[in-house]
């Protein structure tokens, strides 16, 4: 039997396969396609203190090997979230990570505080980096703010806290270190790159918001460089995100230093990708006589 477990702070994941926030809904959308209990951890779509309708269409653009989105964090707000989404999530036998965001320091802490007494939640991911909302990225482009928000969330919860970072900065590790100092148990990287596409017929931006978030296989090389940088500079675990579509992709990230990883855009067109990747990781370990997948973490030969 291959041991696929990985450890993120106090959490033991049965395997390193997680879902990326905003690409797996609230898990229910996938329940008839995937045995949710088999996933290492499920990260839910960002919830905010107040409801948000999201951005006007057009919200998504397909590109070769990638896509743009400007969804704009639509969600029912923390109150309705607790009533409408939490019960189903609690019924899943795996770690549930609630991804939260606020427009200010209080916003993040407020969401976390409201959830703190609910059972069946394993931790929080702080969306410091959604590029589709006004001021959405200041939390993760300014290390002081990132540290302050992390600290304030840290004080509001006993559960593990992951800070999710944007790649659209000069030094991602500077922000990562700030989050580590603020008490984050792990960092998740990367959120989407800022991208744009123009309709040459109408001469309009394809997205209603002009620019949006670029994701998918096309961003994998960038994500890998960022994850490697973080793994070199931080002492807390790094959760890799960015263009992961296959077990081979996931292995690249784990070898480069990621403790776990999240499947994002791939869920849209291969809705069972999480479990395919899990199975293929197991095969890989079997074929290569690796009894413990976690031994691969950071095993890069320089």
């Amino acid at each position, binding site marked *: 039997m291959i041991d696929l477990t990985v450890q993120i702070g106090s959490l033991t994941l049965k395997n390193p396969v997680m879902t990326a926030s905003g690409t797996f*809904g609230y898990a229910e*959308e996938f329940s*008839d396609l995937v045995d949710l209990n088999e996933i290492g951890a499920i990260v839910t779509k960002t919830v905010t203190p107040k409801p948000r309708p999201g951005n006007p269409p057009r919200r998504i653009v397909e590109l070769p090997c990638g896509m743009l989105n400007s969804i704009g964090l639509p969600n029912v707000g923390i109150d309705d979230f607790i009533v409408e989404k939490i019960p189903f999530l609690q019924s899943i036998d795996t770690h549930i990570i609630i991804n939260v965001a606020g427009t200010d320091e209080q916003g993040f802490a407020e969401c976390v505080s409201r959830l703190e007494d609910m059972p069946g939640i394993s931790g929080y991911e702080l969306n410091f980096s959604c590029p589709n909302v006004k001021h959405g990225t200041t939390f993760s482009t300014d290390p002081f703010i990132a540290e302050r928000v992390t600290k304030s969330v840290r004080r509001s919860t006993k559960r593990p806290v992951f800070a999710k970072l944007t790649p659209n900065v000069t030094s991602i590790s500077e922000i990562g270190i700030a989050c580590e100092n603020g008490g984050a148990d792990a960092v998740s990287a990367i959120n989407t790159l800022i991208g744009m596409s123009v309709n040459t017929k109408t001469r309009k931006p394809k997205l209603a918001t002009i620019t949006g978030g670029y994701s998918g296989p096309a961003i994998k090389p960038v994500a890998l460089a960022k994850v490697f940088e973080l793994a070199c500079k931080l002492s807390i675990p790094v959760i890799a995100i960015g263009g992961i579509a296959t077990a081979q992709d996931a292995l690249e990230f784990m070898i480069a230093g990621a403790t776990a990883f999240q499947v994002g855009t791939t869920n849209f067109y291969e809705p069972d990708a999480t479990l395919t990747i899990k199975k293929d990781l197991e095969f890989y370990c079997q074929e290569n006589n690796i009894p413990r997948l976690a031994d691969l973490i950071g095993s890069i030969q320089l």
Partner: protein
Amino acid sequence: MTLKRLCRSTLENISHVARNTYVLTFRSHFLSHGVSAGQFLEIKVPQCSDILWRRPFSIHNIDPENDLVHVLFHAIGRGTTVLSMLEIGEGVEILGPLGNHFHYDEHLEEAIVVAGGLGIAPFMLMKRELRQRDIKMQLFYGVNSSDHFCALDQFADYATLHLSTDDGSRGYHGVVTDMLIPYLENLSENASKSLFVCGPTPMLRTVQTIAQQYNIAAQVSVETIMACGFGACVGCAVPMKHPVPGKKEYYLACKDGPVFHMHEIVFDD
């Protein structure tokens, strides 16, 4: 509603039925049973690893006796062109059934179907359903030119056809909605009749106005860009006619739709 599934199947047939238009047939017991008109499938474009998203297509028809499913599509871009060149026996990967479907009110006696171009796709399955329910079918069907008409014979065995072409090459010379007005004008009683609409946005906008004007119920199947087709990406937003500002302003075409009541939604460009 039926649960969706990921189905691997093989191509049973592909036929060129009109200009640039194909019917793709594949075998699937699951997808040929318990699906309804208006529902759609997401089909993977094979061979092209740079095309990420599956392509959404209405279920055109089913043949439950033979476990067959038909999709009618237009080769319009790269993905559909690749699909049009598939060969019999090749593998196809399909996710479905997805979305909601057209509803028939229990008092419905006549379905007035308005189809523009490839908007005809869902109505073959609807014909099947209407026949089973003994509901009359009036088919208003407009295309650019006569070589775009699909499956007229198959419709003609049940529906009354009202055809139009933009170039006048067959039927009424003009847009399909021009024919609809006099028809509604002469209707004595609207309560047992309903519009079922699918087609390009300008047509939908016109039908929306007409339906309101003649006070007739109308259901519309909309097409938006879709990354997933099952509510995961939240990309297929359709503006609500009556939003709750700051809270809920959009439906999802793939989950709340693709079929909506005409008066619920706004047609953006």
